[in-house]
């Protein structure tokens, strides 16, 4: 085993940070999209990620026998989870949020409802699983490439590539399709959209579908990568992804991607730094983020809101 010189440590931690950041980015995207379109901080989003992991676990359990628990089985489970949880996102929007939006309810009510949805989701899963951790077993091994003492497994590479692909697809969707155009338009001015004949409610539902599907994808990948899932796993990642979305500029899609990566990199850097270590890494990370926000309150890529009187 080669000794880990500073150069190799930096490379390995960069890789670690990139992978961690990918998960944060995928979940942060959902936060940003929903906020951008209806100005709601969807606290239930972290739990959508968790539900996605469990649906993927269930799907793998059902189809694993036929398709095996290698990449084919995982991909099928991923797709199933994305679709089903995307639909769940639509249901939540129609049942919990849209009625309040229709009545021009105060922002606080929407926020509380989101908290309620979050509690409902993870408590339901807790009861159904008796609070137990479920082992997400796949047949993936630890083969990978080694550059000196730096190890990168094929699984990690595929995760990062998959995340990048999903984000590229989202970018294409938002910027090159009519649906995406509608979403961006609604984020600017809802009433004008209605005047232009855009079905605002349907488009918002679509936003929830896409955001939830992405979170579900992250959930399944986390299950595959880390190997265990539990009803409470959405809490921490929801909190961090939300922070990442704000750092990158809430409402901005590239911002969410950037925010997630920055957060992941800061965390891994914090663990390695002397005087910080894993005990203080969160203090370190969030301290820097506070400074970032103080200097640029709307986030790195955020746009300042101009209120037209």
């Amino acid at each position, binding site marked *: *085993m080669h*000794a*880990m010189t500073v150069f190799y*440590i930096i490379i*390995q*931690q960069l890789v*670690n*940070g990139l*992978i*961690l950041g990918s*998960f944060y980015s995928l979940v942060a995207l959902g936060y940003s999209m929903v906020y951008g379109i209806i100005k709601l901080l969807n606290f239930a989003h972290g739990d959508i990620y968790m539900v996605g992991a469990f649906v993927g676990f269930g799907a793998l359990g059902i189809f694993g026998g036929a398709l095996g628990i290698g990449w084919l089985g995982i991909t099928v489970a991923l797709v199933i989870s994305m679709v089903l949880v995307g639909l769940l996102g639509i249901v939540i929007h129609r049942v919990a949020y849209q009625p309040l939006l229709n*009545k021009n*309810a*105060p922002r606080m*009510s929407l926020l*509380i*409802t989101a*908290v*309620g949805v979050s*509690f*409902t989701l*993870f*408590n339901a899963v*807790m*009861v159904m699983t*008796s*609070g*137990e*951790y479920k*082992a997400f*077993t796949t047949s993936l091994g*630890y083969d990978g490439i*080694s550059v000196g*003492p730096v*190890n990168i*497994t094929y699984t990690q590479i595929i995760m990062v590539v998959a995340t990048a692909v999903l984000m590229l697809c989202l970018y294409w969707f938002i910027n090159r399709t009519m649906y995406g155009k509608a979403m961006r338009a609604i984020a600017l001015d809802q009433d004008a959209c209605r005047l232009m004949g855009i079905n605002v409610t349907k488009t918002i539902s679509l936003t929830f579908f896409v955001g939830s599907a992405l979170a579900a994808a992250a959930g399944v990948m*986390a299950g595959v990568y*880390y*190997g*265990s899932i*539990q*009803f*409470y*796993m959405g*809490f*921490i990642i929801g909190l961090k992804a939300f922070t990442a979305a704000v750092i990158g500029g809430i409402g901005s899609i590239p911002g969410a991607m950037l925010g997630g990566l920055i957060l992941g990199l800061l*965390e*891994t*850097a*914090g*663990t*390695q730094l002397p005087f910080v*270590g*894993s*005990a203080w*890494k*969160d203090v370190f990370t969030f301290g820097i983020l506070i400074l970032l926000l103080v200097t640029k309150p709307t986030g790195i890529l955020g746009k300042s809101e101009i209120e037209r009187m």
Partner: protein
Amino acid sequence: MSKKFLSMLAVTILSFTVIVTGCGTQGSAPSGTSSNSSDTQSTAGSGDIKIGLPLPMTGSEATYGKDMENAIKMAVDEVNAKGGINGKKLATVTGDDACDPQQATAAANKLVSEGVVAIVGGYCSGAVVPTLTIYNEKNLPFIVEAANSSKITDQNPGNTFQINGTAVHQTQKAVELFKKLGAKNVAIVEQGDAYSSDLAKQTEAAWKAAGNTVVSHDVTTKGEQDFSSLVTSLKSKNADLVFWTAYYADGALLIKQLRQGGYKGSIVVGDGSSDPKLIQMAGAAGEGTYVLSPPVAEFLPSAKQFADAYKAKFNQTPGAYAPLAYDGINLLADAMKRAGSTDGKAVIKALTETKDFPGLAGKVTFAPNKTLQESNFIVLQIKNGQFVLQ
């Protein structure tokens, strides 16, 4: 105006209901200060001797709680079948502490208000420590069966007896094991809670006192799944042994990621991780991991009968703390008989005077600080997907 007010009121009440029911039944969530009548389950009739059982019945440690409750109930049934104590039958009241200090306090108050005369149980040290004075105020003897943080020993108001090996005993065993494995640079990883932090700090002190090096002492967050940066950090510090002092769910992930990251040294885990689920969740990466364990039934020659009876009754093998849980009730029954009453102070005195009580896990005699005179920790290793006694 009133319609808007009514709808806001309805939303508030609805969300409040959701939050309260959520807080009342969940595990390690950011819980508030709710206490629910659903937290205690009692089997008592009037005239029975009520024993309170504070255990994690929900949350990440629920499997331990249920296992201990099973063993306790089995012991209670056996005592009752032999005629009970001083003519009265034993009955149990379970209080769910969910391994959370706030819920534990609420459950403790509930148990006390139900009129229990003794307390047996306690798995998570973090959930036990805040309840010690609550029980002591009513002079309730508290037999702690699994929680072993030295915080409990230090803050013992006089009514608490620990029949599990404490962190002091476990530290001794750990240092012994590290020496045997020829480790030079040890890295310790804990989770900041009463149990893991205590074990980590004591092990660090003891290892350093023996003239060795602790290359890093890290604290991870419970529930966070990504240890990759920690793994890299440990590798960069050339640790040849990693000692994980917290629980099995995150421990399994750490083990997986250590091996995935190419770590070749030894891995030792404390008794909070000594669970078959560790093997299941760590998978192939778990091979060769050393586990410090409380005396588990399958490795105790005296416990064969107990293990068979447990298997017959509950359709599963007894868990790691079942023998101790079983011993706790029998020890309490023995103390009550010796005291000739269920009066708290008398029973506490009788417990203090316990000498060589024959438990499944070994003979119980209490040292002056009300912990075991002799340690009962054992060392296991994961070989071929099974725990093997070392």
